């Protein structure tokens, strides 16, 4: 499935970024736009997402997370994600604080499940589920 990059307002010019909508568990009415982050090992989401889907992280060990130059705290859990029509069980690290605008899709929670083609010259990415 092909997705256009998102255009973001910038101070001097428009910023374009590769994002795609991700349904988390059964939160159908509000898919989250997530940034494809090929440099990230894990999926990193804001902790509010866990609250929104009723995922109790009480007792889950907290660890220090470094991503994008940011140092934050994260708790890892599993949740169902639906991307390009495929629903799968994914590992996600829920982070607080999370000052970034997007949740991040990384290698273990996303790229290993999908074949991704990025064409930054034409502002699109193709995402196809890998054969099961």
């Amino acid at each position, binding site marked *: 499935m092909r997705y256009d990059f998102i255009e973001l307002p910038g101070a001097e010019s428009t910023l374009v970024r590769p994002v795609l909508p991700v349904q988390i568990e059964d939160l159908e009415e*509000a898919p989250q736009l997530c940034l494809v982050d090929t440099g990230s090992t894990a999926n990193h989401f804001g902790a509010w997402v866990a609250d929104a889907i009723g995922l109790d992280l009480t007792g889950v060990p907290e660890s220090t997370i470094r991503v994008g130059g940011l140092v934050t705290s994260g708790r890892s859990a599993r949740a169902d994600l639906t991307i390009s029509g495929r629903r799968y069980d994914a590992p996600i690290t829920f982070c607080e604080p999370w000052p970034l605008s997007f949740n991040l899709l990384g290698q273990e929670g996303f790229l290993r499940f999908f074949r991704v083609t990025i064409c930054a010259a034409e502002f699109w990415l193709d995402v196809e589920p890998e054969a099961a």
Partner: protein
Amino acid sequence: MARFTIAGQTFELDPQRVETEVAGELPDPVKEHYVVVNGRRFPPKQVIERVTGLDRADFTTHQARRVLKRLGFTAARAGEAEPAETANGDGPYGGRQAAALAPHAGKWVALDSPDHVLVAASTPQEVLSWLARHERTAGYGMFRVPTTPDETEGIAPR
């Protein structure tokens, strides 16, 4: 300050009061008509209900539009191009999407298409609550509009 009679009652209104009254309000879904207050599109009846305390059933959209236009607010129909939304730039939408998002920098937004913001709020919980309350779906997705490039891609040295 201007004086208006709405539903048989007299009100003295000015633009600043209208802006203050709706500052903390999330706009309801726009069906046909809207007015632009503080850069956001509101159904006219929502605004007049808020500033007068009247019930929406007590006045018409036409009355509400007339009052708000007299106070200097832009009123238009959904689907008409809003003058401020001029697009100019690179990207898959020629800058149209960036222009639609620009007024919402720092806010959480839900979009039903690339350049149509359904709701913008200070927290993701407010956005989820609004979607549930109005039985709407953010078909395009939700996220927080960045105020700086760092919020998009991290703060690692470039």
